[in-house]
């Protein structure tokens, strides 16, 4: 259990991780993996930030596919962030983009 900055909010990270894994599996092969972290958004509201790694092929087609919305729908179905009092945010990067960066949060 992780205690967020807001005292009243406790989130079971293990349960979230399991839901994220299920969503990632369902979205393969377009989605390679999904990570997340908990924090606050720019207004100070408790939030969950999903980091979605997509295949290079899916990354090239991002403007012409419904992957963006399919990912959001799948994660919302599995995690139900609004029921946890969390606002959900989604970031997408491709495998080859990540290979050029050194960002442990996304590994």
């Amino acid at each position, binding site marked *: 259990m992780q205690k967020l900055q807001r005292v009243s909010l406790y989130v079971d990270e293990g349960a979230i991780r399991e839901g994220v894994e299920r969503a990632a599996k369902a979205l393969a092969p377009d989605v390679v993996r999904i990570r997340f972290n908990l924090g606050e958004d*720019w207004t100070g*509201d408790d939030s969950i930030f999903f980091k979605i790694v*997509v295949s290079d092929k899916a990354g090239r087609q991002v*403007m012409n596919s419904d992957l963006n919305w399919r990912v959001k729908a799948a994660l919302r179905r599995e995690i139900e962030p*609004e029921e946890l009092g969390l606002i959900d*945010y*989604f970031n*997408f*990067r491709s495998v080859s*983009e990540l290979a050029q960066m050194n960002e442990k949060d996304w590994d």
Partner: protein
Amino acid sequence: MALADDLLEQAHHLARREKSKPRQASLRRAISTAYYALFHLLISEAVLNWKRSEHRFDLARSFEHGQMRAASELQKKVLLRQQKMADPKLDGEDLSIDYHLLKVVSNFVELQQQRHLADYDNSRVWTRVEALNEVHSASEAFRSWQIIRNEPAAQDYLFSLMLKKR
């Protein structure tokens, strides 16, 4: 609605600039511009409801980012709960309106957060896919809005963007 459309086109352009190595400035401006495209689309649609056209520009200036986010987030919560309670076998017109409205409000909240990071957090590195994805979110919100803009639920949402919490 011309300004909103122009901004969206500009966001597309910025997200695709520099074919091999995109500059951070281009990607940041693409994300920020995508947000402002949707921001101005919603405001321009809201003020159209004001009968006296000479007042619309002043009225448009009264909209606030924070209030619009709060109204959108509230609407998003309501729609997600309704979606969960809805019979999955239903595929009616109401479900379709909710689906498109959820796209608009959800993408607005997300774009505003990303715009804040893109404009103010210089430690954040953006990638092309991230920028294209945010521009795509704005485009999708535009498309959905065109489908539902005259629906009562969409008009109620526009009205809520103006209301301050008391």
